[in-house]
């Protein structure tokens, strides 16, 4: 039975797209059939982070409007054969995505994959509402700072009001993923601590992704960090989060960068 996830946050720049790519790849590495869907019509990014920007022919809007078949728009990942991308349109307007067309696409994706991960645009406008519309579960991305936390709180309220599940009187399953977490700064009081965030949002924690340059480096290479550098701290954190989604019961901690002796020596020389 396929599960539709929405990755959402309200605030922009907190790591929705990065997390969508990393979690999608991590689930695929664990043997699951995964599709990541970009809902940011007009400002698409997921194709870049997945390294598929030159392979986009048809997109979500084309399929929703019936101008292309789903199989024509899906881009199969070159590294992982059970990972696919459904890109957003860069040239069209957000309003071009019809409710009916979207419902049909999600229904079809459910038959093809184990996980359908919807990358929501920032904000609480139509695009974000469309991304969460058919979700069974939501991953709320939050940075440990007050404005991100309040925006997440707002989004959680909307998940309970504007989704298909809410309309049927059911609840959308919610998971909190704290990204860009810096243990040292949190200890010094320069960031909200994990417990403060959990206290405000009261949503179960899926994982904590440490702040790391590896994430930015992987994005710029067009690779999800879980593929680019699977042993790095953020990749291990994403992988743990993916396994928790699959039902594994793992203790939550903040993975730290492993002390790499060779890396230190050569890194030091190169510098």
């Amino acid at each position, binding site marked *: 039975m396929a599960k539709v996830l929405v990755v959402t946050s309200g605030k922009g720049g907190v790591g929705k797209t990065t997390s969508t790519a990393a979690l999608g790849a991590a689930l695929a590495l664990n043997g699951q059939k995964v599709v990541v869907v970009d809902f940011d019509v007009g400002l698409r990014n997921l194709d870049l982070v997945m390294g598929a920007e030159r392979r986009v022919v048809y997109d979500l809007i084309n399929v929703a409007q019936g101008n292309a078949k789903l199989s024509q728009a899906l881009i199969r990942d070159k590294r992982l054969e059970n990972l696919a991308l459904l890109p957003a349109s860069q040239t069209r307007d957000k309003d071009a995505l019809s409710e009916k067309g979207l419902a049909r696409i999600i229904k079809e994706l459910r038959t093809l994959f184990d996980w359908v991960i919807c990358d929501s645009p920032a904000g609480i406008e139509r695009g974000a509402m469309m991304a969460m519309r058919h979700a069974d579960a939501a991953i709320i991305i939050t940075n440990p700072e007050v404005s991100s936390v*309040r*925006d997440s*709180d*707002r989004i*959680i*309220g*909307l998940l*309970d*009001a*504007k989704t298909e599940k*809410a*309309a049927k009187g059911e609840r959308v399953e919610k998971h909190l993923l704290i990204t860009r977490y810096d243990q040292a700064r949190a200890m010094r009081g320069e960031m909200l601590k994990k417990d403060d965030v959990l*206290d*405000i949002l*009261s949503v179960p924690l899926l994982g904590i992704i440490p702040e790391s340059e590896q994430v930015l480096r992987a994005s710029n290479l067009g690779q999800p960090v879980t593929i680019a550098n699977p042993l790095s701290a953020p990749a291990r954190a994403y992988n743990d989060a993916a396994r928790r989604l699959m039902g594994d019961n793992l203790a939550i901690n903040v993975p730290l960068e492993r002390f790499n002796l060779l890396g230190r020596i050569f890194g030091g020389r190169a510098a």
Partner: protein
Amino acid sequence: MGRSYLAFVLAPELPFVDWLVELDRRVENSLSFFANRPLVLDLSSIAPTKAETVEIIAFIEERHLRLIAVEGVPLDWLPDRLAPLPGKVQTAGVFQPPEAEKPTRSAPPPVSWEPEPSIGSPCAALLVNEPVRSGQSIIYPHGDVIVVGSVASGAEIIAGGSIHVYGCLRGRAFAGTNGNTNARIFCSKFDAEMMVIDGLYKTADDFDLALRGTSVQARLDRNVMNIEQMS
């Protein structure tokens, strides 16, 4: 400290006759809600002619509702006593109950309030079993509101009676909005943005810093709001 008043906005929809029938039903069901409550009529969405405007105002006033202003039509169509509110300055203080004017089927408000308390319990409290999220309003003019969970920054609770929050109150609380000076606000952890009882309000700047994070109750004592720690 200062005093604020709540006015409710009536926004008629087309067809007008159906809307009027719905209004009658609501007025009948919640007499206490409409009794002496100042109302603002917003006609911008139905764009009536001058003759229709006069007729609509007559229909509303026939029902003994206290109309204080009309918006959305040219000024010279209105009798002097119903001048529109000046600009947007005051609309910030005007609250619109989510269900009363705009019954939307696709998106029900996350926490419903019952329009009529069940017979035999005239002031049944509204029990909210989950956290109230930023941007949500819980409006319950009939009595107390009990929240089992926190009220987020940017959320608000508006109650005819007292407000009880078993969690952290970070948002705004309006108690006793029907003129109930005995209403109180209780919370197990106090970090509110604003506390209002019967229109008398205090904002975060007025709060004693030592009370932050403690469990407190707020009540009116001869038109002064006291916020005190509970042991």
